[in-house]
């Protein structure tokens, strides 16, 4: 089916495209090219002098153990966040799919967290787990665990993973639910007649049929954990303690705007840009071929 509108003039199509192109230019192309340009410069903190240093910034980065640490930490954070939010969302979606009464209410509640801004979500979790006044900290103390994400790096990492996953569960839930509802009921019934119990039906029929959705969400979640979690980290831990939660996107900020290493920060954002482009290309190339059944 071909839907092609033919415009008689030259201006109407240009005008229609203009808003999108303008937004892309101003908010992506321009900053991105600035970052590219700055990443090959060495600049003083006040912007009074700058020097062209070729790829020195990148060379320094990859020799810096702190940066490499942050890479590993980000990989850990992203994979655990993606796994947790995907797993949780899948469980919720499977249950929501079986709910008969009050479906709309149940779904609405599950979708709400997505509407919460990352920083607000961060503050929410910050208060719940606050070492001195947090309600959940209080409960944990009863269970014999002294929670303190100001001092304990593991606690801090656990907390941002929890907050980041919680926010993404809604999004994943929506897609999983839609995916589940697209599976013909008769397939599940046929499997039931074929002697597969509920768990086996899920493992051998439902989950494989959901795999395109799962793959799509996996990529989206990794991208989310890599780039969209700045607000959460900033609000809860500010990258601490002792850099324990300084993931790449936070490091770009702290090195650039706090450490005032503009060139190094720009080089980091160029690397992040490369990562997201690679993920996107990967998704577009494989989503319809590799996972299709």
């Amino acid at each position, binding site marked *: 089916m071909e839907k092609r509108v033919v415009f008689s003039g030259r201006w109407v199509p240009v005008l229609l495209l203009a808003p999108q192109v303008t937004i892309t230019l101003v908010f992506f192309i321009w900053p991105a090219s600035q970052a590219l340009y700055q990443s090959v410069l060495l600049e003083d903190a006040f912007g009074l002098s700058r020097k062209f240093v070729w790829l020195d910034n990148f060379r320094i980065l990859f020799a810096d153990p702190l940066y490499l640490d942050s890479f590993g930490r980000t990989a850990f954070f992203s994979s655990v966040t993606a796994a947790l939010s995907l797993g949780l969302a899948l469980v919720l979606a499977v249950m929501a799919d079986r709910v008969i009464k009050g479906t709309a209410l149940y779904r609405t509640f599950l979708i709400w967290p997505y509407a919460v801004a990352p920083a607000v979500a961060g503050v929410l979790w910050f208060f719940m787990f606050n070492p001195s006044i947090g309600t959940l900290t209080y409960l944990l103390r009863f269970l014999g665990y002294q929670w303190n994400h100001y001092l304990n790096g593991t606690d801090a990492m656990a907390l941002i993973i929890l907050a980041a996953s919680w926010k993404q569960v809604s999004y994943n839930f929506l897609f999983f639910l839609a995916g589940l509802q697209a599976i013909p009921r008769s397939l599940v019934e*046929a499997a039931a*007649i*074929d002697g597969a119990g509920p768990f086996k039906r899920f493992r051998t029929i439902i989950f494989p049929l959901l795999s395109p959705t799962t793959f799509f969400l996996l990529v989206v979640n990794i991208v989310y954990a890599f780039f969209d979690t700045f607000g959460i980290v900033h609000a809860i831990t500010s990258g601490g303690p002792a850099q324990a939660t300084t993931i790449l996107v936070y490091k770009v900020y702290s090195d650039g705007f706090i450490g005032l290493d503009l060139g190094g920060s720009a080089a980091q954002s160029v690397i992040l840009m490369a990562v997201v482009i690679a993920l996107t290309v990967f998704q577009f190339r494989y989503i319809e071929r590799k996972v299709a059944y």
Partner: protein
Amino acid sequence: MAGLTFSGVRKTYPNGVRAVHGIDASVGDGELIVIVGPSGCGKSTLLRMVAGLEAISEGEIRIGERRVNELEPADRNIAMVFQNYALYPHMSVFDNMAYGLRNRRTPRNEIARRVAAAAKTLQLEDLLARRPGQLSGGQRQRVAMGRAIVREPDVFLFDEPLSNLDARLRVQMRLEIRRLQQSLGTTSLYVTHDQVEAMTLADRLIVMNGGVAEQIGRPLDVYRHPATAFVAGFIGSPAMNFLPATVAATGSGVIISGTGHTLTAAVTACEPQRPVLVGLRPEHLLPASEDSAALKVAVDLVEALGADTLAHGILPGDGAGPALTVRLEGSRRVDVGDTVPLTVSPDHVHLFDPGNGNRLV
């Protein structure tokens, strides 16, 4: 192998909708029973209750001697062919057929043997490695059949299995299903809304309407002696003509209302002047000479099908008169505007109560 018994089976959905209002029937061992009826008559619900996909609200279903009301679908030893085939799209044809056997921990070589045998019967041998998405409609249908027969179940359930096929393939698959069922001798329940399918496949028919079994019987018995006006109109194509009439005072026949036509019929059991509904099958109306004609139809539409010609018209009288369809031989030439004189044997005049639709005598 086992028979199937329904006693007082009812289905009421949680929202209060009553889909099936008490079915009593028994299916003999190896018999193929077709449940036929218009959409929404409860026929699929009945089938799904046998499969265990719908709970039985009241009554009892037995497969052989076992009461199956409380059994899971898996434990009923049935196999079902779905309207959309319900093949597992991510599995090969072989795996589709083997799935049920694997779930029952059948030994590997036994699975291979049974699948190979089913594939041979259904001419699927070359397709075992393919995915359902790479098959044509007829081939998918065969795989669905194969998946049912490898299980060697007590009962086959068919839920409108041919309705997604084109007309030619449907006729061919209909014959294949019948042949296969006869050679396997498996008790089968087959749901369809297509009365031709029902007539050709069935050992016995259950004609359903509004959640009730209107008639249960052999296809030709149902055709010859429909129990209700609904059954009479549903079975047979083109559909039976219905004409309002009253029993003649002389007690020798009926007078078609508003036209003055009189038909000879066996009305001894009816009191004179009683209003009745006369049912005449289009194929039982025979052309006659002008003076021996019982009915004269004014033709207003002709469908020439080759083998036969369907003439649609009205019985002239005061006002528009009742509509009538006649099936004539294909060689006979009829034009719009013609008046065709017709006669009908008294044996072929069906009488129904105009109130409840029940057959009179």
